[in-house]
């Protein structure tokens, strides 16, 4: 088969700048052929190479005594004691989900699950952070239905419980939704599998589903802005098969138990190319592949197509040759393909043969390591002008506005489409704050949360970056967990624009400061840039996925309040309304001011206070969007009770000052907490009480049943 001639259009279509293409020629000392150009494009696109972000990602704190493996492998690994480890990561599948919502979201879940079990961990929890356009935008409804069904369709069949997530709506996502999928798995700390190959002449084995033409060029597509040709990109979206993924997971974990695996890598973005290059490069070896041996489900596939296919549910492994029979038997048991498709070689070459013909012959280490790295120009986001926000509203109307907005309404419509209880260890299902999964067969449990407030990040990237981490820290703390570590999923617009790059840099600095102060290092992550449509960027959305450890069931802090419980607020309330959920509701057309400042010392002190006094706390939630008013309503409503707060002041009720928690406890416990707070020098104040069947803020009041009906029906009414 003749290959297309390399033209300027073809070079541009592969995402190369003229300088980058010249660099490819210089590395090779010749022009690449078509297949080679495809391989370089796969390795050098933004999605795989992190060329715009690497410089800044390096500044993030990634180490700590709890870290077994930081960024660079398929997922991060943290120590959870007793010789056990938690393996986790979050990754975006934004562009595919906008083009084909069901399959885009489904394969996003599939990809992140594979990242986790490739390292030898059985997935025990998933989360999904979803950002959509305005509910009334004509595309939003279809995206919400498709993405939620896709996330559920894949995860439910695979059999991993959903532990939490986020769903938000903003006009900035009208043309570019975000689908960020998180997965975490459990492994023995001394049985983690890595990607570095070792040994010359070792067989390279292809595992899992067959290769088709789906997703060819997907990673390059995901590294470009959208325009009105988007429908033409539908064929670059892959199709997922969760049943095959489930078998692949079982077979892979069983295979690892046989001792046959030297190294293993899942085939994600740019499938065969990225996985083979990564294993060779990390092991200081070359790789030779014979493509006619690759299991194929379509006829007459070319070398180019096979090297760039993003068919799902596939893995590449370097095998101990003496254990081939045992390894093959495992895959036959699960009815999956097992094919030797090449070998490791001593020379630094990535040699691709197809029916005896050399289709690519590239210096492997250079292919892996010479991807361009840019120090993109960036502009600091200008500070917001100070606002005079001394207005007062009817607080019940303010609350109704929030709970009648799909952003803050009950998300049962979403979470009930996900299996939250499979595997039999769900201690707390999603809904309010962090989810909790027990570590099977032990007294331990892990808390999971996913957080970011994009409007804060846009107004003030540094404080917004800090706030995303701080809110995650608080959500973990509020259920009694000790925050352990973090994964970051950085969703931004076009990094070639200095203002966008400035958002990225500011957010990274904020995240770095917060994970350092709160001792929750970044152990894995993902960057998604070019989230723009026709030149309009999304809100900067650095999603923070975080995990915390609970060492005994008795240390879990509950979420049920009882009649007569005191409502006690930990932390100072100054009434910061800038960038608040309420302000956006009641004055959408005005300047929204600055994001709240995050005092990291206060965050740490208040988190430690909560954990140290958990026995005096019946229920706890952090204060975030919607401030005290929304938190008090949510906590009370979950227990079917009313709540009375002593104030009707708009700023005190709806201000979004950070480092605060709302506690429900008995009068005796409240006294214990006040005494402990004096000793710890932490500010606590009694804000009211739980009970009755009304929600009362000062002199304003409404029946709980009416508010509950709004809260629980808004989401379904908007999208059903």
């Amino acid at each position: 088969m003749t290959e297309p001639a390399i033209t300027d259009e073809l070079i541009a279509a592969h995402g190369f700048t003229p300088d980058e293409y010249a660099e490819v020629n210089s590395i090779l000392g010749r022009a690449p052929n078509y297949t080679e150009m495809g391989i370089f494009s796969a390795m050098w696109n933004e999605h795989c190479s992190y060329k715009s972000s690497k410089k800044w990602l390096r500044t993030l704190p990634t180490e700590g005594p709890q870290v077994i493996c930081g960024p660079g492998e398929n997922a991060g690994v943290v120590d959870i004691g007793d010789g056990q480890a938690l393996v986790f990561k979050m990754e975006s599948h934004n562009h595919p989900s906008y083009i084909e919502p069901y399959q885009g979201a489904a394969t996003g879940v599939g990809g992140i699950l594979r990242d986790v079990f490739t390292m030898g961990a059985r997935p025990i929890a998933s989360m999904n952070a979803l950002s959509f356009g305005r509910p009334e935008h004509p595309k939003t409804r279809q995206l919400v239905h498709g993405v939620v069904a896709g996330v559920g369709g894949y995860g439910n069949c695979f059999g991993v419980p959903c532990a939490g997530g986020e769903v938000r709506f903003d006009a900035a996502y009208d043309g570019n939704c975000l689908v960020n999928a998180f997965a975490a798995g459990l492994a023995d700390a001394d049985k983690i599998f890595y990607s570095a190959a070792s040994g010359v002449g070792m067989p390279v084995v292809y595992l899992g589903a067959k290769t088709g033409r789906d997703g060819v060029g997907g990673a390059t597509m995901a590294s470009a802005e959208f325009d009105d040709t988007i429908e033409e990109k539908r064929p670059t979206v892959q199709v997922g098969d969760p049943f095959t993924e489930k078998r692949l997971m079982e077979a892979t974990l069983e295979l690892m138990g046989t001792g046959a695996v030297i190294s293993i890598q899942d085939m994600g973005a740019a499938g065969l190319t990225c996985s083979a290059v990564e294993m060779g490069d990390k092991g200081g070896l070359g790789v030779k592949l014979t493509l006619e041996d690759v299991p194929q489900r379509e006829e007459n596939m070319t070398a180019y197509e096979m090297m760039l296919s993003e068919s799902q549910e596939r893995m590449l492994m370097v095998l101990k040759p003496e254990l081939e029979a045992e390894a093959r038997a495992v895959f036959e048991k699960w009815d999956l393909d097992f094919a030797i498709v090449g070998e490791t070689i001593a020379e630094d070459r990535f040699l691709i043969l197809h029916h005896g013909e050399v289709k690519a012959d590239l210096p492997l280490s250079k292919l892996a390591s010479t991807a361009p790295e840019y120090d993109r120009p960036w502009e600091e986001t200008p500070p917001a002008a100070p606002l005079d926000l001394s207005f007062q509203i009817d607080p019940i109307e303010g609350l109704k506005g929030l709970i009648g907005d799909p952003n803050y309404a009950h998300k049962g419509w979403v979470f009930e489409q996900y299996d939250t209880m499979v595997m039999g260890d769900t201690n707390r299902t999603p809904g309010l704050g962090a989810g909790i999964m027990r570590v099977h067969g032990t007294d331990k449990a892990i808390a999971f949360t996913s957080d970011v407030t994009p409007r804060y990040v846009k107004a003030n990237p540094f404080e917004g970056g800090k706030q995303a981490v701080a809110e995650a820290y608080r959500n973990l703390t509020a259920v009694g967990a000790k925050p352990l570590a973090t994964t970051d999923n950085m969703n931004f617009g076009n990094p070639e624009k200095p203002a966008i790059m400035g958002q990225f840099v500011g957010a990274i600095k904020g995240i770095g400061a917060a994970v350092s102060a709160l001792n929750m290092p970044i152990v894995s992550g993902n960057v998604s840039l070019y989230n723009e449509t026709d030149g309009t960027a999304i809100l900067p959305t650095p999603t923070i996925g975080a995990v915390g450890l609970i060492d005994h069931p008795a240390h879990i802090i509950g979420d049920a309040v009882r009649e007569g419980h005191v409502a006690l607020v930990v932390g100072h309330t100054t009434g910061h309304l800038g960038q608040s959920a309420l302000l956006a509701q009641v004055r959408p057309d005005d300047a929204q001011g600055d994001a709240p400042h995050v005092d990291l010392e206060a965050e740490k002190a208040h988190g430690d206070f909560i954990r140290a006094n958990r026995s005096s706390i019946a229920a706890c939630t952090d204060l975030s969007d919607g401030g005290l008013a929304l938190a008090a309503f949510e906590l009370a409503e979950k227990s079917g009770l009313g709540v009375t707060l002593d104030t009707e002041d708009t700023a005190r009720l709806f201000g979004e000052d950070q480092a605060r928690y709302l506690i429900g406890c008995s009068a005796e416990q409240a006294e214990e907490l006040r005494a402990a707070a004096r000793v710890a020098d932490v500010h606590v104040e009694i804000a009211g009480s739980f009970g009755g069947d009304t929600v009362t803020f000062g002199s304003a009041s409404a029946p709980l049943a009416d508010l509950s009906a709004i809260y629980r029906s808004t989401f379904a009414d908007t999208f059903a």
Partner: protein
Amino acid sequence: MKAAVVVFPGSNCDRDLAVAFKAAGADVEMVWHKDSTLPQGIDIVGIPGGFSYGDYLRCGAIAAHSPICKSVAAHADRGGYVLGICNGFQVLTETGLLPGALLRNAGLKYICKTVGLKVETSQSDYTNGYNAGDVIDIPIAHHDGNYFADQTTIQQLHDDDRIAFTYTDNPNGAQDDIAGILSENRRVLGMMPHPERAADAGHGGTDGQALFRALAGALTTA
């Protein structure tokens, strides 16, 4: 009580069911779908939830033709006990061990939540730990749980007191709110809700424990 839990390649509640059986005192063996015989001395076979063979065709349709299902049918014919939960219930209707079929949920969406179940009969070795009329909280998690059968069959189920559980607030459109049914000899139970997800105070509550305890009581013989 000796229990076998069938493992299809897409089963994902197999461990959960084994844990619930063991908590009730059972010895549990996992049985692979390609096996054609059950282990010796099995009192009860559990067919767990999940997606047996992917369920891309009708749920449970391919599983019904698996080697292990032939021995499960033979076990039932001999008067053995079979408990099918969720996908397991779908498999039991596909094999013909129970009548009717499970259609797509009326709302066309997958639903995972805890629902109220009314115990319709205490006259079985599964339900005699409850009183008829009790309402218990048990999680559901399915896309195809809408029980359907022809009117004659439904009438027969009523007449024979073979409806084990009904929903108090029908989540999926099931006929007559049916959530679980018994075979004629009352030894095969199929139900969409997951009692194994409500057999532990730290996970989903304890309202399902009585089912496993009742079984253990009936099947623990000297």
